[in-house]
């Protein structure tokens, strides 16, 4: 498995964790849920998106084109 795929998997795992936190917070109507959604859920999703975007910009370095 190439590094790009590993990064995509990491991004996916972070995003799923963030979305899971968000779903739980939406079902749990308490002030603490609001903090959890913004703090933990937001952080995990932002981290997942950042890893995904980084995997895109670093894709060329990870998979260099063979020399002609």
């Amino acid at each position, binding site marked *: 498995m190439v590094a790009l795929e590993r990064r995509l998997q990491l991004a996916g795992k972070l995003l799923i964790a963030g979305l899971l936190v968000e779903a739980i917070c*939406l079902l749990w109507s308490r002030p603490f849920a609001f903090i959890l959604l913004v703090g933990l859920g937001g952080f995990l999703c932002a981290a997942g998106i950042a890893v995904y975007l980084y995997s895109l910009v670093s894709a060329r370095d990870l998979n260099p084109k063979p020399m002609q």
Partner: protein
Amino acid sequence: MHFPTILLIALIILTALLIAVFIARPAMTATRAGKILAFVALFLLPLLCMAMGFTSELERSKTTSFCLSCHIMESHGRSLYVDEPGFLAAAHFQNHRVPADEACYTCHTNYAMFGGFRAKMHGLKHVYVQYLGKPPAPEAIKLYDSYNNRECLHCHEARSFEEGAVHTADPGLLAAVKANKMSCLSSGCHQVVHNVGELGKAKFWKGAQ
């Protein structure tokens, strides 16, 4: 559960399932279609879910039930049901002078620029004190700043208020109230608001409970 919340949770589940496909088979991104689908699943949809979730929670944080979900606010919630017209908060709540489902927020937000933002910052401070600080006894809870007449006049600055016999009895009163030099609440006029320390001997209205 509200219908928009159900829809949002359905969207979150769909997004998570799509992401799971990419976790199981990351090689899918080798094709053009896979790349586009990955962009939707790993970027657009999570961003949409977060924005919708944040908006939903922000709207929910305005509700009376949200404010009263903290144990410390229980007596303030009870004060809304006092069967005594002199209790300002109760009179407003019971007669729907404020929306009953957003009663706390309607009076305790700030009707100036960035008022909603300031109200949210105060809310965050409440949560901090609740979980990490030392919460005061309900009867010792005080406002961060003295209550501004602007919040009352947001609804009450009307002809009936300006021409009311009590408000026009003293020619300087109206100007002082509008300039926030004389408080609506602490000037001996409408000083009974929540008064949670006096709830022990109060009668309660059971109409809407």
